[in-house]
């Protein structure tokens, strides 16, 4: 009892081959699309590499790039096969390769599915990486003279201006670290020395934020210093003032940005997976119908095409048996205690030529 049996006339077979040829070429384009999406994601992650702590998140774009390239190759081969299937003579060339090709493509579509699911699972690791990375970046904001961290200030400023965010969780993160380098602090002034002594670690802390936290939409000029001190500014109440600084934290902003990218990529990959699966189904039908035509002998007759020759359970059983026999072929026969050199007398009847007369024994020379 075949699974999903369908009848195909000669015309239908030819049409199916042509349509599959076009669909395979479209799949090559989707493979290129997957490749470029992976490349895009890799570039985006590397752009903000300074702000992310060391975490294993490069595997997602690498997987997408690999899957895209393999999809191009597989579908290119599939297109060539389908193009040749219109002509039955050329099909004989590909007859032996088609079944392994279909099995390989079937397992490959699982890889595509895994790639799509990975896009959605990356979020947790990304959040942790961003959290650690941003905390470090804010701590090293002032170190513009330390090699390797010279441009961290610029990166953080550009990040806050571009993504409209301030600090890691919020603007108060800037109150807990010293973001003005000691090079620019006048240590001879009493106020500066007092402030440095006022906390255990000797840091110059203040309720001020860098200029990049300033909100463009504010109707009044930006208040960066003494942000929590209402009396320091005229007509200012920091609890109700929402337009002065960016209220959102940069971790949340970056996470939202990357999640948005990855959701779009994940959706595209899922659609590509469905498309690949449908093309594969078409190729399977083409293969089985052409093989049946060859078995019947008459190239112009109708033939059946199916997904599986027997039912699902029987096919699974047969395949398991094959795998078991393959396993047995590797095992040593335990009847002779494992020694293959012992002569086991043959139990079958020997055939001694047309007269069936056993050979005379050759007399030994004395």
């Amino acid at each position: 009892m075949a699974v999903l049996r369908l009848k195909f006339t000669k015309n239908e077979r030819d049409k199916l081959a042509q349509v599959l040829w076009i669909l395979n070429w479209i799949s090559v384009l989707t493979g290129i699309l997957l490749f470029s999406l992976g490349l895009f994601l890799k570039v985006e992650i590397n752009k903000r590499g300074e702000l992310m702590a060391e975490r294993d998140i490069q595997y997602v774009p690498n997987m997408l790039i690999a899957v895209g390239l393999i999809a191009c190759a597989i579908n290119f081969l599939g297109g060539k096969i389908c193009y040749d299937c219109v002509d039955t003579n050329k099909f004989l060339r590909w007859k032996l390769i088609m079944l392994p090709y279909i099995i390989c493509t079937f397992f490959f579509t699982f890889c595509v599915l895994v790639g799509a699911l990975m896009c959605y699972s990356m979020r947790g690791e990304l959040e942790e990486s961003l959290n650690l990375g941003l905390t470090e970046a804010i701590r090293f904001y002032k170190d513009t003279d330390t090699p390797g961290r010279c441009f961290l200030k610029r990166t953080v400023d550009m990040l806050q201006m571009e993504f409209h965010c301030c600090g890691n969780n919020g603007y108060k993160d800037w109150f807990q670290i010293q973001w003005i380098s000691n090079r620019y602090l006048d240590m001879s002034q009493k106020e500066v020395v007092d402030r440095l002594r006022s906390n255990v670690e000797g840091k110059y802390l203040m309720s001020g934020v860098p200029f990049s936290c300033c909100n463009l939409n504010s109707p009044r000029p930006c208040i960066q210093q003494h942000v929590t001190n209402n009396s320091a500014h005229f007509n200012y109440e920091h609890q109700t003032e929402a337009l002065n600084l960016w209220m959102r934290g940069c971790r949340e902003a970056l996470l939202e940005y990357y999640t948005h990218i990855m959701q779009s990529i994940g959706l595209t990959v899922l659609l590509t997976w469905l498309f690949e699966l449908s093309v594969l189904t078409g190729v399977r039908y083409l293969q089985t119908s052409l093989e049946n035509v060859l078995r019947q002998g008459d190239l112009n007759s109708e033939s059946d095409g199916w997904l599986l020759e027997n039912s699902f359970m029987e096919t699974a059983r047969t395949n398991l048996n094959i795998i078991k026999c393959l396993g047995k072929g590797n095992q040593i026969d335990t009847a002779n205690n494992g020694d293959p050199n012992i002569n086991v007398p043959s139990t079958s009847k020997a055939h001694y030529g047309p007269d069936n007369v056993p050979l005379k024994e050759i007399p030994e020379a004395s």
Partner: protein
Amino acid sequence: MPFMPVKFNLQKRVKLAQGLWMIYWLSVIVGILLFSLGIFFKIELRKRSEMMDNNESHLVPNLLILVGLLACGVNAFGGKVCHDSLDPIKFAKWKPMLKPFLLLCCGFNALLLLTALLCFLMQFAVYLTLAEGLKNSIKFYKDTDTPGRCFMKRTLDLTQIEFRCCGNNNFRDWFEVQWISNRYLDMSNDLVKDRVLSNVEGKYLMDSVPFSCCNPGSPRPCIQHHLTNNSAHYDYDHRIEELNIWTRGCREALFSYFSSMMTSIGVLIIATIILESVDMAGLKYLTTALETMEDPENPECESDGWLLEKGVKETFGDLLAKLKTLGKTNQVVEGGDAPEAAN
């Protein structure tokens, strides 16, 4: 004596028709490119229209859009003519339209030349509009409560951040203008009152700039206030400090942006003129080659193609004579009037 004659056999004619068909479709793509550049330029002008007092001239982008659409139409028609040219029945349909079509192409080339000239000349107008507009923008920076100017602050801040510039000519433009609204000044404070009274117009002036002038590449946190006062900040000399705030003026920054855009569009238009001339020459050769076939039934025969039937001087002479006769038909013939009047 025809101008630049070339002999054509069947193969050459076919090759010419095919090549010309491809060039015409390339010209259609260039027309689409011109159209989209016109739209892009229009959008950019609109985006920055607040910096130009909403006074900017949209002549160049509108002309570009028109020229792009015309190019698409003209070249698509030319492509269709070329496609049909090797089939005598189909070509006979197009034959009478060819002379007016070539004249139209000439006119279109003249329009392209005018557009290219405008692209280069209108840059002066853009410069002047920017100078005036930026001056007013800086003046109205603080008026975030005045309807119609609410977003001037936001636009100017965004422009200074995006184009990495400060003020009109340079950052000192901010010193001459009150950019903090009176709503946020504590008039009961003596310092504030002194400052307001210290100048004739009663403006609260100070040597500070808004935060959008700050340069993120500076190694030290941004110094916005008391810029010219070295003693107000530790280890600071305003004469040698270059990285603190942007030193370029916004007029120069915006002008160089628009000027480079307009120059590249002008260069593209000149390339389009050359392409269109090549199209016209090819079409003229093809049509004359098809017309001068001795035996129209035999496609294998040879024929001549040329650009002008007579030499250049003779053609111009003929044109001038035609124009003169056109003018003369409008004049009343003097000899015929007098006998009528006598009657």
